[in-house]
């Protein structure tokens, strides 16, 4: 979009965002403005939450462990930990010198209180089920060993325990000061240990965080959600701007400093601007065409292979993501450390072979309905291109555009032939495969109901040894390409646009915007 002149319009947008109603900030105060596409649901981490809530609260509260940049789990409030030989007992040693926003030091008492609160069903913690009877393992005990040591006991070994604690949608299992809740247990406000604390929340307009002077960052460089989390600005403001176009306009006028989640289409325009910098990462989301393998027509893997063979995967990726996405045929995202050479191969289209396979499968031009939606342009455009590419090999695909909720309903009930879909980011390839793989009869969401795949998936989960896991993923990938229960096409890019005077912004493939370590010139 062309340059815009003048401060008048900036003033206008300032008013638009209701800034004029605020008390003027002190002259020396630095203010960084970022966008929320919807207001956060609550300040209660891991309980009443959505992605926005998770993202904002990552700046306010911290857990014992968290994800590192490479999606492995690293220490945060826990300095280190030991696992018992039977894999059931975890002993966490707290990092000394950490204090809560209210000045109280972090001790094992708060950790025990926090974990027990989460495990209480009345709390409705998002990940309560995972760590109770219904999940992988049950927490049978949480106790303080001394003021700096906490012990957690599981009923059976669970390799994913730490990863679960680190999960962003679990609120990072944040350690809170008990004054976060009232005497009746009702939620008040988070008293955490993060670099920022909440200073003001005007519903549907903005949310203000201010620097927590007493913050003690985990030493070291910025690393995922773990290290180098120091605040570099005095005040961090999240403006609620639902409309993406309005948000983009705000950025162009200088009323926003950071705009995360830019669509590739918009990024095409923003790329030309000299007062902006784009931060593009190959994300952990997975775009795929899902098949219902019990469908009378699509149950034959040769037809599914045929469709896969019609796809010009790089071309499709380029068109849908404006050249910013990474073609990828593997369930393992390109940014994952497990994405090795075996995963990286992208077979070229082969229309003749596709025709032959379809023919062999007894396909005679019957229409295949591909469900898509208008909410997410990438899913829609991807479906349109898949339709057009399959047409070239004589395979008739009919698009059915539903709204997102209706498509999700079909996804959850398995009522479709084919579906254009994007899996949200899953840090661990096991979780990625887990989203796809399983017993269709028990869980209709699963697209890949194959005993061999399930065995391999179990193997990848049971061990913590990277080499062993890598082998399992490579085998899974080979099997996946042969069976084609779904066609993974690309990992959508994670694009942020930041103003030129913003320093230290670093996007992260695995997560939304992180505004610690970000300053203003």
């Amino acid at each position, binding site marked *: *979009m*062309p340059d815009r002149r003048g401060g008048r319009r900036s003033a206008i947008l300032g008013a638009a965002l209701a800034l004029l109603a605020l008390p003027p900030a002190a002259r020396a105060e630095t203010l960084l403005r970022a966008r929320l596409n919807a207001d956060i649901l609550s300040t209660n981490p891991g309980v009443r939450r959505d992605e926005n809530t998770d993202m904002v609260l990552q700046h306010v509260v911290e857990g014992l462990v968290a994800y590192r940049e490479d999606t492995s789990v690293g220490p945060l409030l826990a300095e280190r930990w030991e696992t018992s030989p039977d894999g059931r007992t975890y002993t966490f040693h707290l990092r000394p010198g950490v204090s809560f926003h209210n000045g109280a030091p972090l001790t094992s008492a708060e950790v025990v209180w926090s974990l027990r609160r989460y495990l209480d069903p009345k709390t409705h913690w998002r990940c309560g089920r995972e760590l109770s009877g219904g999940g992988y393992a049950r927490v049978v005990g949480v106790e303080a060993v001394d003021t700096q040591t906490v012990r957690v006991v599981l009923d059976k070994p669970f390799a994913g325990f730490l990863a679960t604690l680190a999960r962003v949608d679990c609120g990072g299992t944040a350690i809170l000061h008990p004054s976060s809740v009232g005497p009746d247990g009702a939620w008040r406000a988070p008293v955490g240990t993060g670099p920022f604390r909440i200073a003001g929340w005007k519903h549907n307009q903005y949310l203000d965080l201010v620097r927590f002077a007493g913050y003690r960052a985990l030493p070291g460089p910025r690393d995922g959600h773990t290290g180098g989390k120091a605040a570099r600005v005095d005040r961090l403001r999240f403006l609620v701007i639902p409309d993406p176009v309005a948000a983009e306009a705000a950025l162009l006028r200088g009323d926003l400093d950071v705009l995360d989640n830019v669509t590739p*289409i*918009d990024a095409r*325009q923003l790329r030309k601007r000299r007062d902006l910098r784009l931060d593009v990462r190959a994300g952990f989301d997975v775009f795929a065409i899902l098949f219902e393998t019990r469908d009378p027509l699509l149950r034959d893997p040769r037809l599914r292979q045929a469709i896969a063979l019609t796809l*010009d995967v790089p*071309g*499709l990726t*380029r*068109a849908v993501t404006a050249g910013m996405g990474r073609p990828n045929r593997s369930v393992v995202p390109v940014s994952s450390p497990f994405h090795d050479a075996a995963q990286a191969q992208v077979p070229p289209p082969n229309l003749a072979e596709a025709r032959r396979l379809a023919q062999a499968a007894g396909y005679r031009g019957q229409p295949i309905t591909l469900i*898509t939606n*208008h909410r997410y342009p990438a899913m*829609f*455009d991807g*479906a*349109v*291109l898949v*339709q*057009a*590419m399959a*047409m070239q090999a004589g395979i008739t695909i*009919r*698009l*059915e*555009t*539903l*709204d997102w909720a*209706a498509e999700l309903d079909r996804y959850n009930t398995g009522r479709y032939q084919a579906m254009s879909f994007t899996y949200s980011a899953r840090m661990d390839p096991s979780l990625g495969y887990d989203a796809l793989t399983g017993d269709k009869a028990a869980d209709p969401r699963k697209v890949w109901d194959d005993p061999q795949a399930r065995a391999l998936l179990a193997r990848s989960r049971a061990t913590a040894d990277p080499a062993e896991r890598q082998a399992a993923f490579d085998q899974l990938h080979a099997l996946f390409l042969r069976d084609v229960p779904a066609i993974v096409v690309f990992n959508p890019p994670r694009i942020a646009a930041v103003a030129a005077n913003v320093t230290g912004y670093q996007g992260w493939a695995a997560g939304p915007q992180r505004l610690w370590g970000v300053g203003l010139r």
Partner: protein
Amino acid sequence: MRRLSLSGWIGVALIGLLLATVLVSLAWTPFNPLAIDLDHTFAPPSARHWLGSDEFGRDVLSRAMAGARISVGIALATVAAAVSAGVVLGTAAGFLRGPVDRVLMTFNDALLAFPGMLLALGVIAVFGAGAGSMVGALAVAYLPSVVRVVRGAVLSIREREYIEASRVMGNSEAWSMWRHVAPNASPQIAVLAASLFGWVLLSESALSFLGVGVPAPAPSWGNMLASARPYLDTAAWLAIAPGACIVATLLGANLLSDALRDRFDPRGAP
């Protein structure tokens, strides 16, 4: 019969052009409107692509032609459905009067009080996007207005003296309805149908613009416009062509309905 005015001729010409385009598009379009060409995206209008190409390299002219087919088909089917149902219900209300009328009209008023666009949106959400549910949704959205007009026409014609004359002759109400009310209401209904064609076309494109219209990849003018929106400043031709098609068609429909109004009035234009 009166001769058509200049504007009437323009209306006939525009609608004629539209129908001709529809017929041609059944047999031939410059390119396959669905065929992508990822190496030639965003081509400005040229000798190869007269109206340019879109974000996937599809030919805009071919898509506009195919869009005419879809838009016109949906509009015609909707008008037929809304008018035939509306005539039955409106006549029943105006003819039977009394409780039937009251119940029908209360229900009708409720539908009228419903924003038509949102009603259509709801119906489409229930039945899924598709030509069929689009026709159903728009027919339901416009039905209340048709019922209103037809009922109004029936009630007003009922009060004319020639209906009383028919009564004096001993004719039954049904005969009066059939022989006097229906022919005298039919011009109004024809004019209504012509305007309705325009409105439906407009609503169809608006719904497609909102993203709940004709299912992709089939082009309709509305969804062409919707997908052109992000490229407004770099590829304006993508928005101009389908918009111009809608304007020309609506103009044609409106002028035609004006001409019909003049022509059907046996007393001639005022």
